[in-house]
């Protein structure tokens, strides 16, 4: 397998983009990425999108996006793993380059969620759960994570304050991200008193509905070296699945899918979690960030809540998590999220993250999750110059 580098990154602004269509968002993110890399033509395109069908009544995104991106006849593959579709698009682009099938592979993540009303969007998102044995009973995604939160609180004594501090931290970071949907700050009190959605998850523990796109351009390290500018190398990939239904997991307070993916990614990179400097993780609900911290081995089971309060994962902490603002502040256009995590990691590794720059950022982890933990894709990225 060839060594694979990321030589271009691009995003759109994230938010409620009423004047932009699914194809506009995908193409804008891709053009920003190609401009960043200084590359005009690619050999392969991968597109992460959870549900063009339900959000926009549009499938066949390979053809649509390649055409409108001015890349007719280029092989384009749409991949889906619910909210981890973006991470899967990056992995698929990696495979295109590592295998030698493509020299330049462009991974695009996109979701246009506001073409349908809130009810329809909720329905579309719920298709990431088991339709016949979860959604059938009236459970929602906040509800699924709320059940994990409840179990975590019961077993480890995790508190509402700890769950809320994740929000405060991520919005502090997101306030410095010009692409973020909600670049505003919140106090702990505001988060803890926000409207209850599914006990114990409140509105400000939940990521929003977002339109947005992100893209990264991959090529071989051999090609990247000739460009004479900083780039990042993908040194580890871990991809795992678990039961789609939460009830069938052996341990409700452990995201085993993330543990498996993290171990695989770190092993491939020849690293341990102690070697990693920072991470972008899938905080679709704040309990997810807490459970991911434990699953990747950053802290022992049950210790994530206290660690967040101690500032371990703050921007100035020993292991910053979600310097971008995370899904909570930056937004969560589901198919775009996994690609945007990689965009942020590369920006940090290149030292171009501005006010939210992580100090001494040399090795990054990105963790993208599908459903209630039915799938996860983790990348390890390392700075090169």
């Amino acid at each position, binding site marked *: 397998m060839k060594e694979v580098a990321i030589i271009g990154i691009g995003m759109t602004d994230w938010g409620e983009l009423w004047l932009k269509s699914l194809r506009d968002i995908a193409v804008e993110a891709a053009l920003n990425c190609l401009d960043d890399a200084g590359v005009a033509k690619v050999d392969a395109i991968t597109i992460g999108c959870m549900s063009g069908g339900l959000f926009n009544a549009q499938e066949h995104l390979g053809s649509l996006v390649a055409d409108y991106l001015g890349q007719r006849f280029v092989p384009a593959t749409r991949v889906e793993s619910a909210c981890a579709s973006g991470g899967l698009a990056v992995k698929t682009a990696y495979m295109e380059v590592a295998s030698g099938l493509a020299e330049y592979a462009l991974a695009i993540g996109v979701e246009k969620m506001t073409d349908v009303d809130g*009810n329809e969007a*909720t*329905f579309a998102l*719920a298709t990431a759960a088991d339709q*016949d*044995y*979860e*959604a*059938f*009973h*009236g*459970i*929602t995604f*906040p*509800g699924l994570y*709320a*059940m*994990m939160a*409840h*179990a975590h609180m*019961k077993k480890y004594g995790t508190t509402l304050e700890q769950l809320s501090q994740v929000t405060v931290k991520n919005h502090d970071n997101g306030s410095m991200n010009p692409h973020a949907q909600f670049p505003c700050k919140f106090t702990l009190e505001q988060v803890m008193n926000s*409207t*209850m*959605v*599914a*006990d*114990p*998850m409140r509105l400000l523990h939940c990521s929003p509905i977002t339109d947005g796109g992100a893209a990264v351009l991959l090529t071989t390290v051999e090609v990247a070296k000739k460009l004479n500018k900083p780039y990042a190398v993908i040194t580890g990939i871990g991809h795992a699945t678990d039961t789609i*239904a*939460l*009830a*069938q997991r052996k341990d*409700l307070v452990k995201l085993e899918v993330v543990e498996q993916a993290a171990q695989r990614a770190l092993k491939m990179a020849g690293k341990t979690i102690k070697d990693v400097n920072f991470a972008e993780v899938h905080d679709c609900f704040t309990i997810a960030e807490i459970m991911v911290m434990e699953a990747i081995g950053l802290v022992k089971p049950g210790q994530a809540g206290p660690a967040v309060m101690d500032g371990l994962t703050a921007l100035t902490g020993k292991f910053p998590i979600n310097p971008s603002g995370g899904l909570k502040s930056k937004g969560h256009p589901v198919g775009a999220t996994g690609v945007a995590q990689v965009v942020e990691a590369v920006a940090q590794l290149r030292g171009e993250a501005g006010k939210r720059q992580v100090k001494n950022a040399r090795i990054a982890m990105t963790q993208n999750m599908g459903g209630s933990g039915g799938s996860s894709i983790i990348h390890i990225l390392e700075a090169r110059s």
Partner: protein
Amino acid sequence: MSMHVARHWRETPERYRMEAAKCKKCGGIHFPSRLICPDCGTREFETIRLAGKGELVTYTIIRVAPTGFKDLTPYAVGIVKLDEGIQVMGQVVDCNPEQLKVGDRLVTQFRRINEEGKTGMILYGYKFVPDVGL
């Protein structure tokens, strides 16, 4: 979304009778039924009926509901560990959701779950209620 009746009809054994698949080799019980045992790989099962009794493992109270469930809010959804050893998700009703506790004994009852709009199917299945030993 309105579906062909068969989409729901085929789930009748599980939803109406709580039928599960018991692996003939390792004895593992699977609900809903499967074609291959994820634990030992066997493809031979016998059909058993779950008693529907168990203990509440975790739960939430849904305040913002999906389409078709709005008139039920606030309602509890929980994961119940059945006495047969497997975990099942379902609504917990006929109780004050604020007073539910992990460890509560619950039992299934046959209830109306939802309807697919005014002209769609009316869907039935199990919900959990407090087990008062009736």
